[in-house]
């Protein structure tokens, strides 16, 4: 018979002998932390001394001063009379604008090329391989300068290229037909977004019910009114107009339509093509990682090809694809900072100008770092959440 004892196990005591591992560990930690703290204090005191010697005031008070720097290509209203703070906000939106659209386009292009790489057609797979190899092995900055030079070499607005009606490509950038977005239209888009979210919740609920009783249920009777009718109703109520404005040449420039400035367009092309080469390799290895037996089993069950891809292959491939894809998204966002080289005014470029105008080096660089750390952490949180959702649940 064993007797259960309430006595706790003997507590480990810290032995203060030079030979013990705990003691050595403690000494190491104290040493390293002390060095780190000493270095930081030394740098700090140097900085304070230097700043006072150069009569540079520290702090973020300069943010409320008038910026006086022109920012050409913005979505938000901005004039040089606005404050530095607002200039920074505009810079951040410019960064997000190129990063978000770049991520979407790079994912689409990268997936297409990754699949082409696996094609049974020899020519197609070789061409995809050449695309990947060439773009991966040339620095992004060089590619960016190259695209920008090509952009500047395009004909002037009067003799712009017209690949499709209503689309103009000239040294003023790319001009597309557009639908003007005002407050009414934003409400309609918001309603559509809300409808999408609610439909998603409904779908989850229906799947949970199916798990209980095994009866398949359709989601579209709920989704259709939510996604289509609700926005339509809002649009009718607010009287929002959805006319397309076509760009036309007036004098030396275009009027109407949506203009992508040459700097923005060059940056977007460079980021998308460069990142898509990396995404293509990730997609390829992800699909190849799905064991052949899974395909065979799906074929043996007589599943339709689309069903097989959607429910058997893709979920397994995604598990391999998502983590490296996340780091590519982060890379694209960080690489968008190269914009400073061609004069697209993103956050780095705005901070750089601020730094030159005010001499507030520490604050400007701290702001760049804070912005990028926030973006990086948000993307990785989102991706970790998504990753946990699709991760293998073993019974």
């Amino acid at each position, binding site marked *: 018979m064993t007797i259960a004892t309430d006595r706790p196990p003997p507590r480990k005591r810290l032995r203060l002998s030079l030979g013990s591992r705990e003691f050595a*560990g403690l000494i*190491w*930690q104290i040493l*390293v*932390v002390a060095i*780190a703290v000493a270095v930081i204090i030394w*740098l700090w005191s*140097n*900085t304070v*001394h*230097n*700043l006072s*010697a150069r009569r540079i005031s520290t702090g973020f008070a300069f943010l409320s001063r008038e910026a006086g720097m022109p920012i050409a290509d913005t979505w938000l209203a901005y004039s040089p009379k606005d404050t530095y703070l607002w200039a920074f906000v505009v810079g951040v939106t410019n960064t997000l604008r190129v990063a978000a659209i770049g991520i979407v386009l790079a994912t689409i292009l990268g997936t297409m090329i990754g699949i082409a790489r696996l*094609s*049974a*057609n*020899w*020519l*197609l797979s070789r*061409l995809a391989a050449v695309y990947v*190899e*060439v773009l*991966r*092995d*040339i*620095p*992004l*900055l*060089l*590619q960016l*300068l*190259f695209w920008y*030079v*090509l952009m500047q*070499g395009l004909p002037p607005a009067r003799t712009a290229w017209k690949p499709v009606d209503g689309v103009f490509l000239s040294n003023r950038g790319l001009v597309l037909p557009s639908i003007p977005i005002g407050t009414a239209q934003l409400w309609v888009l918001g309603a559509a977004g809300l409808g999408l979210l609610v439909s998603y919740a409904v779908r989850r609920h229906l799947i949970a019910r199916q798990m209980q009783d095994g009866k398949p249920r359709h989601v579209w009777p709920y989704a259709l009114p939510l996604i289509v009718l609700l926005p339509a109703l809002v649009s009718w109520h607010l009287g929002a107009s959805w006319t397309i404005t076509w760009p036309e040449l007036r004098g030396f420039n275009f009027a109407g339509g949506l203009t992508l400035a040459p700097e923005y367009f060059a940056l977007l092309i460079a980021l998308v093509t460069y990142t898509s080469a990396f995404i293509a390799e990730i997609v390829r290895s992800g699909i190849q990682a799905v064991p*052949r*037996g899974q395909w*065979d089993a799906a074929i043996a069950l007589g599943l339709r090809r689309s069903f097989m891809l959607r429910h058997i292959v893709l979920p397994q491939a995604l598990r391999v694809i998502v983590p490296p894809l996340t780091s590519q998204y982060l890379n694209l966002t*960080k*690489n968008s*900072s*190269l914009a*400073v*080289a061609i004069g697209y005014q993103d956050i*780095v470029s705005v901070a*750089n100008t601020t*730094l030159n105008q005010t001499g507030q*080096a*520490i604050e400007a*660089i701290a702001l*760049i*770092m804070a912005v*990028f*750390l926030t973006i*990086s*952490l948000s993307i990785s949180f989102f991706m970790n959440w998504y990753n946990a959702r699709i991760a293998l649940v073993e019974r």
Partner: protein
Amino acid sequence: MAATADVPQEPRSLRRMQSGRGLVNRALRWLRANLFSSVANSLTTLVLLALLIKGLAGLAQWGIWDAVWDTSGNDSSACRAVRGVGACWAVIPEKYRFILFGTYPFEQQWRPALAVVVFIALFYLSTRRFFWRRELVYLWMAALILIGVLMWGGVLGLPFVSQERWGGLPVTLILATFGLAFGFPLGIFVALGRRSRLPAIRSLCVLYVELIRGVPLISLLFMASVMFPLFMPGGFNLDKLLRAQIAIVLFAGAYLAEVIRGGLQAVPRGQHEAADALGLSYWRKNRLIILPQAIRHVIPPLVNTFIAFFKDTSLVLIIGIFDLLTTAKTAIIDPVWQQFSVEVYLFVATIYFAFCFAMSRFSRRLESQATPRN
């Protein structure tokens, strides 16, 4: 069963061709299997072929037939005549010395050229499996000292050349190689620190890695060029190139640490336990048992990281250091040749591509050796 599933169903006509022994038959068979296996496939092939021929023909027209290869002296009128139709390769012989070596004294430019050769030899030897031993470290030290002597001079009758005059390809190679040579040991220490059981050291390493990896390299370079003078005691300042080099080392250290950490995780627990059982100290255990295995695991991703660094050194353009890309960009400021930047960028792109492609081939070969494919 599984083996037969891999064999594609061959139509009868294909089987008939198989019986033929001739080269033509074999070629036809290959074409049929790889390019014309179905209607959709044949259509894809034809469309791609048409596009490819059109593209290549246009490129050849621009780059070869209508191109200007040579002009007399610093005169671009022949190039201007064919602008928009043909390439102006004449800009390359005119400017290549400046693009490759920057403002290094002209009659001394054999020294950076020799340094580049030493770099390439060093890289080549490092890829040989035969050299993967301790002597490689000594080889690197000797080569880096030799490169320093060649570039700086001041000894052995070589005139001294200060860093401000360095430029072009040697600067790119120096930034990448020294970044690697110092970033690698740093990465090892940080990776070990991140897996340490000591909480203070672990959190310091995590902080360092996440901070550096969360921000773009440009912000670090800005920091090095603008904030470094503020950090140092009054009057003390380092050369701009050295400051950028420090930023690149710190950057490389964080990324390499993550790669090495992956390798450390792949070393089985039993190896740690066996080393502990032998009574090895922490440092001896890591040096003799753990790290050699860990690094061997991650050589292919390490090479990929090196490729990324090599390309990333081009970012020093933004803080005005004369690396290969900056000299190229400066070369075409010359109003005579201003319009021909595409040609210059293509020339520089070829150099970058040659280095990166060689490294990526090497990494691919290592990977295929590590996982034999059946």
